[in-house]
């Protein structure tokens, strides 16, 4: 999709700076997947409805499909590939496995990144707040009960 207006943009994804040659119209989602090659972040609706493309920008969860890559040159971008610490799973990842928080798995990277950010936001945890605060992530397999259980467990004080 390179065109006449493609320019070099340096994005810092999972603490690694990458210089990509992209057009202004490339969304952050497409830059992450198609230019940086990090395909863990998923493209579902591409219109900010499903949350499959959730990433963190400077620690805040956003839908990467509704922002331009060029707008994030000085930001710290975290994708699902940057959530674990080496071979040690992030507690939300471990809890999703423990509670079987997925079926097809397509929404799972977005669910996990969103949940990690949600827990850092410091909401008082209950089933209601998890359902409310995770409303931006749709699961078409309908695994919500297990997703809620996983997030509640991951959010318990250690």
């Amino acid at each position, binding site marked *: 999709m390179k065109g006449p207006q493609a320019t070099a943009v340096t994005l810092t994804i999972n603490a690694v700076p990458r210089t990509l040659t992209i057009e202004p119209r490339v969304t952050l989602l497409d830059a992450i997947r198609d230019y940086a090659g990090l395909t863990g972040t998923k493209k579902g609706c591409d219109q900010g409805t499903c949350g499959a493309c959730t990433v963190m920008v400077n620690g805040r969860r956003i839908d990467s499909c509704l922002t331009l890559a060029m707008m994030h040159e000085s930001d710290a971008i975290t994708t699902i590939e940057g959530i674990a610490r080496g071979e040690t799973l992030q507690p939300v990842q471990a809890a999703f496995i423990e509670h079987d928080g997925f079926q097809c798995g397509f929404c799972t990277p977005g669910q996990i990144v969103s949940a990690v950010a949600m827990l850092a936001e410091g909401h008082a945890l209950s089933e209601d707040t998890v359902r409310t605060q995770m409303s*931006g992530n749709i699961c078409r397999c309908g695994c919500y009960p297990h997703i809620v259980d996983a997030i509640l467990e991951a959010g318990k004080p250690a």
Partner: protein
Amino acid sequence: MNPFAFARADSVASALTAVHRTPHAQFIAGGTNILDLMKDDVEHPPILIDINALPLRAIEQRGDQLFIGALARMSDIAAHPLVQSAFPVISIALEESASPQLRNMASIGGNVLQRTRCPYFRDTATPCNKRNPGSGCGAIGGFNRMQAVLGTSDRCIATHASDVAVAFTALDAVVHIAHGSGTRTVPLTEFYREPGTTPQVENALAPGELIVGLAIPELAYGAHSTYVKARDRAQYEFALASAAVALDVQGGTIRAARIALGGVATVPWRARQAEALLAGAPATRASYERAAEAALHGARGQGQNDFKIPLAKRVVVRALEMVSA
């Protein structure tokens, strides 16, 4: 998306200069509305000017007003102690809007300028007088369950989609606008334009102008305010009907009230007749029901959306009961 050029502005002055340079240039802040519309080919600006570096993120007391910079994000405003204490209706309306991800992205200037969710506006294969003036209205006589019942015309029945603009309208918020030779202010109640014969004209903003912030004047009873939103899902859905209310009750008598409706009108809808009926009335359900009737005075359904009229009345009554409890 069609190709476009991209530029960054680092000051209000440079943003205004840049937007004047190219006809049909547009600003981008959060991007959640403009990029969505560009993907659908409803909008096709030749250049986007990124204004995120502009110093317009303050949320602060300025004299007797609460000032919210145009680039403050929905989530930051909702969580701000000044907003939560003085005007809970703003926080609640924001928390009831969109999703957490979108609230982290969307600026308040963009929120109040967001375009309608009318499916005909967003589908370029269908007629729409707002998108393509003179082409007709697909919603009139078409799928109109989500459309407006107040402020409509025979050219357009599209609903205004913002929740927080309804709260701002109830609170007499004032829009601060920068232009080439200075700044001007417009009360939000005069900012929006009902469709009439020109549904493509949605507000008082002239080409090349930039919203720099919103000011909310002090309201002694602002702490007694709330937002009630009825919708098809519990979260992450646009309003079928909503009400922003504030109520000053002393010894069982209402001294003053503010009421605005969302989800049912072509612009955030201030219900001044209902407010006037409540002033001096007893704080009872009967008073609230009279006010709700007045708030929906003149409402006209299109068939599928007739249900919004009784629904909106119940939403008004519930909101008034909640703030007087």
